[in-house]
């Protein structure tokens, strides 16, 4: 395992946990997305109740060199409200499906948050000064009787307690008939895409009343619908390139320079089916729930129900690497279909990039490359692409002693259960880790259980 020895293996320790302690989970508190900003200083979560909570990392304390700064609540705001579509007589959930940060350009921070139908651009800014000494207003805001004003003064700024304000700057609405599953900001930092089940739209961050439709897979006759879009992302470096994944396990790479409507892909990534593993559930488990480019843009990672696959953009006919997340579930697919767990959409993420190392390194295996994804029973998995080792860890309050290295977990698929192993039938399928995020620069990870956010970091010596 990772951490079982070896000089460069990461040893993960519990750092913090955020959220309610009690087992009775309020539906609105269910975490639905987790995302670090580009510097890693801020960590945003979205929940089913439409709220966004942003945590900020404390500046490192020089006296406490053995741990990195803690994350504390920085701002909380209601991003989306429940709505009712009167035409269809259906509720529109306020659940935040995705949050994506914009790179910081000035003192304020900007992020995009989306529910099923509407994307919003939020500005988060700090206020730590306020003007005092108005001539016409009292300090409490009441207007003074002008006849009582005998002298004039210039208002001055005085320090105040830090206030963090979130204000919606743009609302991008009415462009999606189906449920939005992805948003992705382009490397030009001016445009972004939003993808629903059947269509992908291109927006300009400044313009809310128009968007371009760049992918449309809706059949003329809805009865012929057999495939939907499940995720989409812009290439990190090429502003005309994006990919989208489907429920049939395919990924299409499109170039917006080729045509206005990118219905014809430039590349189609699909692994031929293994006929020996074919079952009635083959298609469902091949459905891709997440797609993420590597930082270099040379690879992309996809997550389907049982595995994580790494694709080289230059090779379309099969992935270069496949990692089994929980292969022991393959014999339980029928039960997982019955209880709907087979439709769970797990996300995946790459470790943070050290761009300097990537640039100067002659040998790619010097650059740590680790991918992470969640599983059931509050387990999450990491795969080291260089050492080919993997580890299973658990996000639970039982391990919450800071600086204690997390103990690796093991699931026993069949046969005799060893000590400390957990059998497949004992797994709690209600405790699923769908959302994880890796700090862009350091070995700090955020792992979301149903309603708690765990932060782990590597053991610093």
């Amino acid at each position, binding site marked *: 395992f990772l951490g079982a020895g070896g000089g460069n293996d990461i040893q993960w320790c519990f750092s913090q946990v955020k959220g309610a302690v009690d087992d009775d989970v309020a539906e609105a508190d269910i975490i639905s997305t987790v995302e670090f900003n580009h510097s890693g200083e801020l960590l945003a979560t979205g929940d089913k109740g439409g709220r966004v909570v942003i945590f900020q990392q404390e500046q490192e304390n020089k006296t406490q060199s053995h741990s990195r700064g803690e994350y504390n609540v920085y701002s909380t705001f209601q991003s989306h409200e429940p709505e009712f579509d009167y035409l269809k007589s259906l509720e529109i959930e306020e659940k935040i499906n995705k949050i994506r940060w914009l790179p910081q350009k000035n003192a304020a921070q900007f992020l995009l948050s989306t529910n099923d139908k509407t994307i919003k651009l939020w500005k988060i800014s700090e206020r730590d000064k306020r003007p005092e000494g108005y001539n016409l207003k009292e300090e409490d805001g009441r207007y003074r009787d002008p006849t009582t004003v005998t002298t004039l003064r210039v208002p001055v700024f005085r320090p105040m307690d830090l206030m963090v304000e979130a204000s919606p700057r743009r609302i991008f609405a009415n462009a999606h008939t189906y449920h939005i599953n992805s948003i992705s900001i382009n490397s030009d930092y001016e445009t972004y895409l939003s993808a629903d089940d059947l269509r992908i739209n291109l927006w300009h961050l400044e313009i809310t009343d128009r968007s371009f439709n760049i992918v449309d897979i809706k059949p003329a006759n809805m*009865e012929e619908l057999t495939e939907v879009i499940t995720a989409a992302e812009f290439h990190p470096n090429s502003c005309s390139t994006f990919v989208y994944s489907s429920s049939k396990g395919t990924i299409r790479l499109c170039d917006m320079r080729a045509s206005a409507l990118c219905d014809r892909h430039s590349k189609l990534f699909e692994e031929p089916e293994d006929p020996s593993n074919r079952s009635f559930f083959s298609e469902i488990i091949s459905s891709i729930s997440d797609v993420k480019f590597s930082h270099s843009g040379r690879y992309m990672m996809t997550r389907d129900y049982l595995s994580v696959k790494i694709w080289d953009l230059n090779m379309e006919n099969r992935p270069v690497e496949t990692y089994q997340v929980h292969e022991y579930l393959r014999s339980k697919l029928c039960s997982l279909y019955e209880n709907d767990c087979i*439709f769970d959409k797990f996300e995946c993420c790459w470790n943070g990039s050290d761009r300097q190392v990537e640039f100067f390194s002659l040998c790619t295996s010097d650059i740590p490359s680790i991918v992470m994804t969640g599983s059931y029973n509050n387990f999450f998995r990491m795969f080291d692409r260089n050492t080919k080792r993997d580890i299973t860890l658990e996000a639970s309050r039982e391990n919450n002693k800071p600086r204690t290295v997390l103990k690796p977990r093991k699931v026993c698929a069949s046969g005799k259960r060893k000590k400390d192993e957990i059998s497949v039938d004992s797994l709690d399928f209600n405790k699923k880790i769908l959302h994880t995020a890796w700090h862009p620069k350091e070995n700090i990870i955020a792992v979301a259980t149903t309603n708690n956010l765990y932060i782990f970091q590597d053991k610093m010596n």
Partner: protein
Amino acid sequence: MFVRGLKRKCFDGEEDIEGTLAGIKAIPSYNLQRQSLLDMSLVKLQLCHMLVEPNLCRSVLIANTVRQIQEEMTQDGTWQMINTQSTGQASLDRLVSTDILCRSSRDQAEGKHVPSYGTFNKDFESDQAQDSSETMSTASSVQAPRNLQSNVWEMENPQENKGNFQKSLDQIFETLENKSPNSVEDLFSEVDNSYYDLDTMLTGMMSNTKMGHCDGLETFSSPTNTASNSNCKSDLNELDHIVEILVES
């Protein structure tokens, strides 16, 4: 989709119990379990009609699964509506989870079952024909011996399978329609092919996802009696719910 005959393999561990009893009592046949999966899928599709818009991805995946089973059953020749005799059988739990369907063919002792294309129903609409022709072309490249075991099972239990098939239809139908059929004839007069017509069902499901003012030019397929009945029932529920919301606010 390859039609395959399955022979229960000998498991290790706890799963072995069922395997060892294979010779002693009747174990659920592949057909029965496939039926169970079909029933489960249809119920899932119908339950999609809730107040919040159904998850389109989930609906499409379930519908594709139903289509696969339907195709396989057509190739098997078990996809037939016939009169059923009232059987004294204890009704099995239709929605029991089984492991046999989850097992890949690699685990099977015998090889795959080559589908018999002669019984292929040509009344399917074009896209399903396409799917099947794809299946045909891929299947022909698979070299596999015909599994005689499964044929034996089918011949032994044709009545059971078809009876169960009919019964499961009844169950779903009753759940959704809230009717108790007076006679067998009445039952069949209600359970016409169009209910089980995948396209009609998908229409009933898909039409909920259409946006009224955007796609106003698209024609809605006319649902059959059965589909519209179930829509009416769900509409009433929705209406109640909406009234509740309005009253509360």
